[in-house]
C-alpha cells in the first residue's frame, strides 16, 4: 500500500525543541488523517538539527466514500431557516428527504461524499498541520506575510507512493529533493520513499533519528573513554542536547591542562557542561574526574580532528583560566571576612541589604535549632556564613554554584564539618533528592526560606497567578519538604512575622504538593485545617492521614454519610428556624432507645476525642468516632427528626448538632468530597 514521506527542512532548529516538534507533527498528522477518514498502518516521526521527517505507511490510494446524514429544520419551519439549510448543504428542496420525529417532520439531507485521491487530500492537509505546529518560539521571515516557523523553512519533501504531493508553504514548494550534511555533502539528493530517503541521507552524513544519534554518541564516548582507561560521567540531559546539535555526531577527546585539576570538580564540570557541552570523564576506580573531556562535533574533519581538538582545548583553557583565577583569588580571603561585604549588596529595595537578611536568618536559626535537634552554635555559624559566597568571583561567574562554593571556602577555612555541609546544602532540597539528613543544614535552609517568604509577604510582594518573581512558592515547597520528609515539629505560628495569610498560603502549597505526591487528598487537608487552624505541618499531615485511613473503612464511610445527612437536615431546619442548634440536649426528652443510644455515644465520644487529639493519638480519636457509627445509623433508621412534638424535634436537632460538633473536633467533614 502507498506511503507518505514528508520532510520539513529548515535552518538550525534549537536542540531543546526538536523532540517536541516531532511528537506534535505526528499527533497533528494522526488527527488530520482520521478527520478525513484516512486509515494507515504505521507512522514514525523524526527530528534533527535541520529537519523534521514523517513517514506513514499503509495509506489507501483514495479516501472511502462517505455518506453523511445532516438533520435540518422542521418541515413547517420558516422559509429562511429552510433556505439556510439548503445553502449549507448545497442541495435543492426536492433532494431532501423527510423523517418523522416526536417533534414533527424534519428535513434530512443525505450527502454523498465520493472518496478523493489521498494525494489530493494530503496536499490540502499538510499545509494545515504545518500552520498548527506549536513551536515554543517561532519567527517571521517571509516579507509581507505572517507565516511563522522556528527558523526559516528552506525545503519540503512530500511524496506519496513515490510521486510529489504538490503544495507550497511559506513560499516553499514541495518536491522530492533535499540536502545532506551542511559540510560533508554537496548537491541535491533525490528521494522517492522513506527507505531510500533514510539510506541516501545516511550516505550524505545525516542520521535522521535522534535515538540513533544518541546511541552512537553514547557508545563512542564510552569507547573513547575506555581507550584512555577512563569511564564516562553520564549526563542524560547533555546527551539529549548534543544529539540535537549534530546531524552526524563524531566524538573527539581533548585534554584538560593539569594546572586546572586542583579546581573543584563542580566548577570544572559546570564550566564544561554549560559553556562548552563537553562530557566529563573519570577514573573508574577512584571516581575522580580525569583530565580528559569528550566533545561531540558535527564533523568528520579532514585532518582527523586535530584542529577541532586543539580549538576546543584552547576555548576550554580560556574558560578554566577564568574559573581558576576566581577560585584562587576567592581563597585569598576568609569567608568570614566577606560577611561584612554583604552590607553593600541590596537584597531588595524595601527589604534592605543581604547583611540585614543574614542577620535575620542567623537569629531565626538560633531560635529554631532545638526543634530540629541541631547544635545551636553550628546552626548560627552556618547561617552567618551562608550568603558570604555571593561576593566571590566563582559565584559571580557561575551563580548556580552558590552555596556549594560557600561550602568549599568554609572547608578551606577549617570551619566545623556541620557548618561546611550546612552552607553547601542550605539552598536545598533540590530536585528529587530528599531533604538533608543533617539537621544543621535543615535549620539554615528553613530559616532562609522562611525569611524570604515572610519578608516578601510583609511588603505585599505575594506570588500571583501569573508571576512569582521571588520564587516564594518554591521556598514554601522547600519548607514543606524539609518539615515533612524529616518529620520536624515546628508550628509556623511561633515564627517571626507569621500571619494567617502566610498560613493559608502554606496550606494551599501543601495541597498542591499532596496532589503531586498523592499522600493525603487535598480535601482532607482542607477539612483538617479549616477548624483546627493547625500550623504545625507535620501534625496537620498526621491528622489528615489518620482521617484518610479512617474514611477508607466501612465505619468511616457510613459515618461520613451520616454526618452529611445530619448536616443537611440541620442546614435546612436552622434556616427555617433562623437559629443555630448546639448540643444542649434535654436528657428527659429522649423517648426512643435510639435517641438514648446516640446521646450516650455522643457524650462518650465528645469526652474522649479531645484528650486523644491532645495526646496526638489520632488513631484513638478515629476509634472514638468509629464507635458513633452504629448509634448514628440506628438513629436515622428508627426515629423521625422532624417529630410532630416541637420540643422533641428541637431536642433531636440538638442531638444532630452534637454529632456535628463531635466530628468537627477532628475535622470539618463538610469539606470532604466523596
Amino acid at each position, binding site marked *: 500500500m502507498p506511503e507518505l514521506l514528508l520532510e520539513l527542512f529548515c535552518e538550525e532548529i534549537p536542540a531543546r525543541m526538536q523532540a517536541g516538534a516531532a511528537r506534535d507533527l505526528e499527533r497533528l498528522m494522526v488527527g488530520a488523517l482520521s478527520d478525513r477518514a484516512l486509515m494507515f498502518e504505521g507512522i514514525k516521526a523524526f527530528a534533527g538539527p535541520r529537519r523534521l521527517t514523517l513517514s506513514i505507511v499503509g495509506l489507501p490510494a483514495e479516501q472511502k466514500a462517505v455518506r453523511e446524514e445532516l438533520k435540518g429544520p422542521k418541515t413547517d419551519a420558516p422559509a429562511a431557516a429552510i433556505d439556510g439549510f439548503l445553502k449549507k448543504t448545497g442541495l435543492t428542496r426536492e433532494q431532501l428527504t423527510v423523517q418523522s420525529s416526536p417533534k414533527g417532520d424534519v428535513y434530512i439531507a443525505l450527502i454523498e461524499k465520493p472518496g478523493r485521491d489521498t494525494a489530493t487530500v494530503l496536499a490540502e492537509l499538510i499545509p494545515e498541520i504545518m500552520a498548527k505546529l506549536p513551536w515554543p518560539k517561532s*519567527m*517571521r521571515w517571509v*516579507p509581507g506575510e505572517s507565516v511563522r516557523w522556528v527558523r526559516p523553512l528552506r525545503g519540503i519533501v512530500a511524496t506519496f507512493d513515490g510521486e510529489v504531493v504538490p503544495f507550497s508553504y511559506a513560499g516553499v514548494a514541495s518536491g522530492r529533493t533535499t540536502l545532506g550534511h551542511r559540510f560533508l555533502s554537496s548537491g541535491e539528493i533525490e528521494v522517492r520513499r522513506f527507505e531510500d530517503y533514510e539510506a541516501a541521507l545516511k550516505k550524505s552524513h545525516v542520521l535522521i533519528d535522534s535515538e540513533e544519534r544518541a546511541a552512537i554518541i553514547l557508545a563512542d564516548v564510552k569507547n573513547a573513554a575506555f581507550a584512555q582507561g577512563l569511564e564516562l560521567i553520564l549526563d542524560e540531559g547533555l546527551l539529549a542536547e548534543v544529539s540535537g546539535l549534530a546531524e552526524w555526531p563524531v566524538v573527539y577527546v581533548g585534554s584538560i591542562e593539569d594546572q586546572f585539576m586542583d579546581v573543584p570538580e563542580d566548577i570544572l564540570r559546570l564550566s564544561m557542561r554549560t559553556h562548552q557541552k563537553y562530557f566529563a570523564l573519570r577514573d573508574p576506580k577512584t571516581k575522580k574526574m580525569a583530565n580528559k573531556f569528550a566533545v561531540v562535533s*558535527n*564533523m568528520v574533519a579532514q585532518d582527523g580532528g586535530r584542529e577541532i581538538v586543539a*580549538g576546543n582545548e584552547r*576555548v576550554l583553557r580560556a574558560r578554566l583560566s577564568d574559573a581558576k583565577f576566581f577560585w584562587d583569588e576567592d581563597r585569598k580571603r576568609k569567608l568570614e571576612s566577606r560577611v561584612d561585604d554583604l552590607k553593600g549588596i541590596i537584597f531588595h529595595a524595601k527589604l534592605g541589604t543581604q547583611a540585614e537578611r543574614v542577620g535575620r536568618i542567623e537569629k531565626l536559626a538560633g531560635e529554631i535549632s532545638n526543634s530540629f535537634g541541631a547544635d545551636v552554635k553550628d546552626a548560627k555559624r552556618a547561617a552567618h556564613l551562608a550568603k558570604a559566597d555571593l561576593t566571590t568571583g566563582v559565584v559571580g561567574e557561575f551563580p548556580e554554584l552558590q552555596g556549594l562554593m560557600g561550602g568549599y571556602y568554609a572547608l578551606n577555612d577549617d570551619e566545623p564539618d556541620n557548618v561546611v555541609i550546612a552552607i553547601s546544602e542550605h539552598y536545598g532540597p533540590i530536585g528529587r533528592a530528599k531533604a538533608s539528613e543533617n539537621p544543621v543544614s535543615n535549620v539554615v535552609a528553613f530559616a532562609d526560606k522562611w525569611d524570604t517568604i515572610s519578608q516578601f509577604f510583609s511588603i505585599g510582594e505575594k506570588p500571583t497567578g501569573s508571576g512569582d518573581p521571588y520564587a516564594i512558592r518554591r521556598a514554601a515547597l522547600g519548607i514543606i519538604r524539609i518539615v515533612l520528609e524529616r518529620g520536624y515539629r515546628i508550628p509556623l505560628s511561633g515564627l517571626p512575622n507569621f500571619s494567617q495569610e502566610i498560613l493559608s498560603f502554606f496550606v494551599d502549597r501543601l495541597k498542591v504538593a499532596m496532589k503531586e505526591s498523592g499522600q493525603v487528598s487535598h480535601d482532607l487537608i482542607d477539612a483538617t485545617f479549616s477548624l483546627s487552624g493547625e500550623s504545625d505541618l507535620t501534625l496537620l499531615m498526621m491528622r489528615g492521614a489518620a482521617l484518610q485511613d479512617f474514611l477508607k473503612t466501612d465505619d468511616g464511610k457510613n459515618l461520613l454519610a451520616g454526618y452529611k445527612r445530619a448536616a443537611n437536615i440541620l442546614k435546612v431546619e436552622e434556616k427555617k428556624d433562623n437559629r443555630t442548634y448546639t448540643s444542649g440536649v434535654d436528657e428527659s426528652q429522649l423517648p426512643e432507645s435510639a435517641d438514648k443510644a446516640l446521646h450516650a455515644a455522643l457524650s462518650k465520644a465528645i469526652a474522649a476525642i479531645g484528650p486523644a487529639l491532645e495526646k496526638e493519638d489520632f488513631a484513638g480519636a478515629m476509634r472514638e468516632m468509629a464507635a458513633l457509627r452504629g448509634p448514628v445509623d440506628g438513629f436515622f433508621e428508627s426515629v423521625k427528626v422532624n417529630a410532630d412534638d416541637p420540643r422533641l424535634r428541637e431536642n433531636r436537632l440538638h442531638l444532630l448538632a452534637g454529632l456535628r460538633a463531635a466530628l468537627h473536633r477532628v475535622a470539618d467533614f463538610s469539606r470532604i468530597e466523596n
Partner: protein
Amino acid sequence: MRKAKTFQDLILTMQNYWAAQGCLILQPYDNELGAGTFHPATTLRALGPRPWNAAYVQPSRRPTDGRYGENPNRLQHYYQYQVILKPAPANVLDLYLGSIREIGLDPALHDIRFVEDDWESPTLGAAGLGWEVWCDGMEITQFTYFQQVGGIECDPVCAEITYGLERLAMYVQNVEFVYDLAFNDQFRYGEVFYQNEVEFSTYNFERADTEMLFQHFKDAEKQCQALLDGDRKLPLPAYDQCIKASHAFNLLQARGVISVTERAAYIGRVRALAQACCQAWLASPQGAYTPRYSDKGHG
C-alpha cells in the same frame, strides 16, 4: 584559502567580501555605541519596507567590561563587524559561511555549529531569533533575524551578522592574549590599545564624574524628547541623543551608582526614547532620495 594574518587583514578581508556581496561599506558611527546594532544604519534602517544591505566596523564601548588590560579577552573598547541584510536573502547562511572561509577558517577542518541564541536588547526594545555560531566550541558570531526594533515589528525581516573581531582574530592567529594580536606586520594590538584599556578602565570605574553623567543623561533625554515633539520631528538628531543617554547610563552602571531597582527604570527610559525615535523615523522619508539633475553619478 589564505588565513587573515593580521587584525587589519581580517577587517580588509571582511570589507572586500561583503562589498562583493553588494553591501554598502559604511564607516563607524561617530558616537559612543555599546554595539554595532546601535548604529542608525542598523537600528533605524532595519525598520520600514526599503531594502538595505550594509556592512561596517563599529567600535563598541562596554564600560563594565574593562579589566585594566589584565584579562586575556575582555575589553571595554573593542571592534564589531556588523552586516545587515534586508530582506534577509534565502542563502544568507551560505553567504555567512563564505565570509568564514574567506578569513581562513576552512569548514572541512573545523566544527562549525549554529547554537540557539535569541538576541534581545531591552534598551532598544529590539528582539530577534537566531544563533551564536560556534567554531570548535568557540563563539565567533552572533546571527539574528530581527523581529522587532523599537517595539515595532520588522517587515521585511532583516538578518544581522555580528562578528567580534578581536575574538575572531585571536582564533585565526592562534593567540591567547588579545594584546598579543598582530595588528599589522609591525604593530601588536597591545601597542595600539593596551594603554587605552588601562586608562579607560580607570576612568569608567573610578574617575568618571557621576554628577556630570547624571546631568548628561537628563539633558540628552530632554533634548531627544524635544526633537520629537511637535510637527517638525527630527528622528536622526533625536536618535543621537538617545545613544548619548544610553552611553551615560552605561558609564553610571560601571561607576556602580545605579541600584538594581533603578537600573530597570533607566533602561525603560532609554527604551522609551529609542521607540519614539523609531516611530518618528518610520513616519519620515526614511532616507528616500531622488537624483536632483541626472543619473550621471550612478554607475
